[in-house]
């Protein structure tokens, strides 16, 4: 299979009060289409920075990164926005649903800038909500549903426009174990449907759902594990 994501010599540093802090120190990775990847590491290891760069929300200081053959480091801010709209579905730890929109309307958000018929958008939204089992609660406001349901709505929003890549930052970080399991099961379903999923976690249990776990520590890839069914393979 061809590499869907190519990360080469990626470096990122932050400057604060004259002190430079290296968040990513030369990361090189290749991810294939359809992979279900967990980026694992302790707090401050650089995993969220890596995910943010993958999601074009942050620019690296050195190195290149291409997704589906597009060098995202060379895109302008507005082209990055377009790229996010068509290529990436985001799922955040704190769900980040708009509180004044219903579950259905939140799901439709990524489609609101696309010029398509209302019926077409409706079908996509209902399909996404149905995938995560939220169709019956589509008229509820975020404040009227549980945290797990809010995250499922966020997943529906992330997959509604059928993006090739789904990025999730600590998707279960704000959920109890039951809801966390439900969310990860949904991720597995999406993975089985062919979505490429990359999620960040510090939870060992959650990383076990992935078929590849990349361990990041001190801004470096310390370990890259691929699981084939029950067997563990070191790469």
């Amino acid at each position, binding site marked *: 299979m061809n590499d869907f994501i190519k990360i080469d010599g990626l470096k990122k540093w932050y400057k604060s009060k004259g002190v430079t802090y290296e968040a990513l120190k030369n990361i090189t990775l290749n991810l294939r289409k359809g992979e279900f990847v967990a980026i694992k590491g302790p707090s401050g290891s650089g995993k969220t920075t890596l995910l943010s760069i993958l999601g074009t929300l942050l620019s690296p200081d050195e190195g290149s990164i291409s997704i589906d053959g597009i060098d995202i480091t060379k895109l302008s801010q507005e082209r990055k926005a377009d790229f996010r709209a068509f290529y990436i579905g985001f799922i955040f730890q704190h769900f980040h649903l*708009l509180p004044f929109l219903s579950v259905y309307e939140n799901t439709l958000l990524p489609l609101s800038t696309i010029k398509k018929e209302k019926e077409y958008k409706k079908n996509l939204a209902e399909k996404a909500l149905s995938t995560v089992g939220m169709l019956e609660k589509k008229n509820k406001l975020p404040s009227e549903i549980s945290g797990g349901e809010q995250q499922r709505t966020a997943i529906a929003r992330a997959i509604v426009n059928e993006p090739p890549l789904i990025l999730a930052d600590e998707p279960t970080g704000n959920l109890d174990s039951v809801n966390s399991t439900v969310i990860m099961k949904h991720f597995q379903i999406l993975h089985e449907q062919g979505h490429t999923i990359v999620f960040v976690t510090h939870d060992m249990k959650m990383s076990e759902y992935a078929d590849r776990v990349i361990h990041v520590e001190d801004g470096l890839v310390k370990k890259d594990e691929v699981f084939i069914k029950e067997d563990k393979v070191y790469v």
Partner: protein
Amino acid sequence: MKLENIIIRNLTVRKFKTFLSVICILIAVTSVFSVYKISTKLESEVSRSFDEIGANLVITPDYKNKEVLTADDIIKINSIKNKENVAVIAPKLIKSLDVNGNITPVVGVDFPYELQLNKKLWKLRGQKPSAINDVVAGAAIAEKLNLTTGDTVNIQGKRFDIKAVLEPTGAADDRMLFVNLLTLQQLTGSKYQLNLIEVAAYCFTCPLPQIASQIQNKLPFASVFKVSDALKTRKATVEKFSLYSKVIEGFIIVTVSFLLFLINISLVNERMKEFGILRALGYRKIQIIEMLLSENIIKGLAGAVIGYLLAVYTAKLWLSNLQIFSVTASFNISELLIACVFSYLIVVVSSVIPAFKAARVDPLVVINE
């Protein structure tokens, strides 16, 4: 789901701030347009009054050189550069004559022009004079000589009919008899002669000194006087009102724009998370700007329509309480459109910086907060 849905939802969710913004725009539109309507109505009324109340230029012969005015001088006045501004030219011949045995000032006038010149001042009790021996009597002289409409009067041995008696004007006209100019010229042997020409010009906006100077150039042996009357005071009052109202309008526009700016900045600060999420989901900066501007334009249009209707009502109320002018304000669709454009400009000016601030939000910062 379209951008419009998010816009409408935002307006209804943040009712208080929407209401506050609409009220701000409404205050601006109401105050600016009510003052505008009042001042323009007063200006046009003063302008109209210049034409209606009487002459603002008086031309007399140069008595030192024993010159006289003639009918030819009327043609010369009609040929000046600013002839478009000349509304009425009313020639006069004034003689003191024997009227029923009393020496009385008799004025020969061209009645159609005279009636036009004095249409506000003269209230006729009787009919308009039309025949060559018709007379209009001033109120005081009619009382003195015991004349009423329908009577006949003997002027210099010739019989005249009293066609109308003037209601008291408070002016010299009360003490005079007015007859046909040609008849008086024939009666007194002063054929073609005039000793006074009154000129009324539309002079709220026209340059009266220039007209006077142009007439003076055409009639070098005559004296041209500008009439100072109550209208000038009124005009000055209206001009002062217009000036003050412009200052007040400017102050209101600046204040309201600043208030709207503050409301918008506060709204944007409150909604940074929303904009960050939208940016993360792939919304372009221009779409965020478009969203915020559209929200404000909707508020602006609502404020403009309600504000303009209130302005018409306020102007009507104010003008109805005004004693010196009999004018009223009315609804005008063009003004409403101007109010909408005006409000649109205020809204855009006050929301450009907040909208750009919203568009520049770093989604990563918002998401990680």
